[in-house]
């Protein structure tokens, strides 16, 4: 059963109407534990109704940033605003938020319906409103028939649905999701990602701050992605744009796989917004502005944007020597050598496997490649 299959349109309409989202603003927020800075001054804004995913490796500060919004950690400096109101000094129970965490954190001694009602009871809601909201929230996540069960009688995926219902029931100003799918196995995780996407489509005003280390969850769900590294914001942008044109090496390599080839700027291309660069012996055109002639840059092109055949669109041509070919069912991964660099290519079809040592031509579109300034800090 999927969430959408179980969703009652009227319940969703009622919830959507009541869930007027709020924006979140980080204004120079930094967090330190015992003198060690774990989040350097962070400034960014999440728009009302937006899903912003914060991704990054362990220790990057993404969870700390989320916990600062929740009020679980006190910023060493800066302010956090929700709907324009400074909440930095408010305790968590006065912030009007809700959270879903990795281990679900359902109250084990309470039935599903009691878990979902918890927040409403805590906020002093009237009995009939509580009953109505519990029913509505459980219907949204397709768990109505499990309302009398205890959490221990549910699977991991079902428990996570109840945790989402519990969060939705209080009509949060912002929903905080802290690695919500990490405890689930791969197959259930994939279906839950789709279900959360459908949930947000049904509740478009709900603002969601989503922390994950899984880039595919972020790419599927987020309107925008913020990439954190070593307690600092490394990159932020609209999901598609950030993936297609990563601004730095870390963003390129953390969000999907990327080929980063040393390149020298040769001059402006005919088309505006593009520059001509030299990669080894090849002359190619890539997206970019304001790069001085002769400057050393990194050319970024995704493995799946390289093909073995060129056309009008894929007008760039580079040659590389294949070293390894890994057939992985639906896809073939090809590793080739270009100068001192490694070129990775993902092909859906590879009709004639190349011979070892034979040089191959690879093609890509100028729009699928961009230039990155090498900077050790990011």
């Amino acid at each position, binding site marked *: 059963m999927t969430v959408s299959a179980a969703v009652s349109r009227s319940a969703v309409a009622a919830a959507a109407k009541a869930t007027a989202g709020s924006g979140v603003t980080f204004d120079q927020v930094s967090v330190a534990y015992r003198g060690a800075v774990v989040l350097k001054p962070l400034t960014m804004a999440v728009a009302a109704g937006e899903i912003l995913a914060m991704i990054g490796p362990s220790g990057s500060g993404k969870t700390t940033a989320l916990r600062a919004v929740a*009020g679980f950690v006190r910023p060493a400096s800066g302010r956090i605003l929700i709907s324009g109101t400074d909440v930095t000094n408010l305790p968590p*129970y006065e912030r009007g*938020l*809700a959270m879903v965490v*990795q*281990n679900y954190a359902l*109250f084990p001694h309470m039935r599903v319906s009691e878990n979902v009602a*918890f927040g409403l009871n*805590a906020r002093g809601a009237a009995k009939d409103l509580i009953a109505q909201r519990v029913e509505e929230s459980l219907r949204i996540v397709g768990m109505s028939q499990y309302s009398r069960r205890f959490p221990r009688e549910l699977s991991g995926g079902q428990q996570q649905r109840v945790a989402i219902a*519990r969060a939705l029931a209080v009509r949060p100003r912002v929903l905080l999701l802290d690695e919500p799918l990490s405890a689930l196995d791969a197959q259930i995780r994939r279906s839950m990602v789709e279900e959360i996407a459908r949930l947000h489509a049904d509740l478009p005003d709900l603002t969601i701050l989503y922390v994950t280390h899984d880039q595919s969850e972020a790419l599927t769900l987020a309107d925008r992605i913020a990439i954190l590294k070593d307690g600092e914001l490394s990159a932020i942008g609209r999901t598609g744009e950030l993936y297609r044109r990563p601004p730095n090496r870390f963003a390129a390599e953390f969000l999907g796989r990327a080929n980063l080839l040393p390149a020298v700027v040769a001059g402006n291309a005919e088309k505006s917004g593009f520059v001509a660069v030299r990669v080894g012996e090849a002359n190619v055109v890539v997206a970019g502005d304001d790069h001085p002639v002769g400057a050393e840059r990194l050319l970024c092109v995704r493995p799946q944007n390289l093909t073995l055949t060129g056309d009008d669109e894929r007008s760039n041509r580079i040659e590389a020597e294949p070293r390894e070919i890994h057939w992985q069912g639906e896809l073939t991964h090809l590793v080739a050598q270009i100068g001192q660099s490694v070129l990775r290519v993902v092909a859906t079809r590879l009709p004639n496997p190349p011979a070892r040592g034979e040089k191959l031509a690879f093609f890509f579109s100028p729009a699928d490649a961009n230039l990155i300034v090498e900077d050790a800090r990011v």
Partner: protein
Amino acid sequence: MSDAVALAPRAAKLNLGGWWIAPPLIVLALLFLYPLALIARAALMDDSGALNFAAAFDVLNSRAFLSALLNTAEIALASTLGCVVLGLTLGLILAFAPFPGAGLVARIIDTFIALPTFLVTLAFTFLYGSAGILNGALTSSLGLDHPPVDFLYTAWGVILAEVTVYTPFVLRPLLAAFSLVDRSQIEVASLLGARPLRIVRQVILPAALPAIVAGGSLCLLLTVNEFGIVLFIGAKGVITLPLLIYSKAIQESDYQGACAIAIVNVALSLALFSLYRFAARRLGA
């Protein structure tokens, strides 16, 4: 079963056919069951060796016994309640609102388990006794003729001493239970709008209930049988079952009466111990 198991060399093992149980049973019988049987015999048989319930019945119907039973129950229940309330308060602070040195405080409270119970009582006489520090300070500063604080030589003195001595027995399992409470449950509850008291009531205490029952029943068991504190304080009119057994046997040489009361005391202890074991099993689970 696979062949591999059948072919595996048999572990060297003495086949005693169940006789191995005999030595521990004999030790158990000699050390525990035989003395208990002697007490039961002394309580229910007269000097000629015939069964005689009349004497035991008279003792158990006496005003002294009923008063001691009531005193024992009142003091044990009040002390246990005090231990649970104090243990809960200390446990919640130590586990959820830790301060610098909280670990040290917990360890110091723990060491009370190792101290003889009468030592605390002795310290109390120095503190709250009629010539103690508190009364000395009050009489000299307020110019009083008589010491104003005299609760120590009443049932309240016994209860205060027992609460001081036995609180660690509640605190220890509580701290263990609190350490298992999922912190994210508390955080999620807080974000859902629950204030600290509601979180304690609805999230933390249900998780710690088996520990409270285990610690509380252990406290009840120990306070029912407490002898040293009651004897040492010597509060007027505060006679509990252990003290009554002592005075019957040692001061009045009424061994039959002492043994009859002892049987009641043992039955009470075993019932409380069963409750403790049940709660401890739940806690372990």
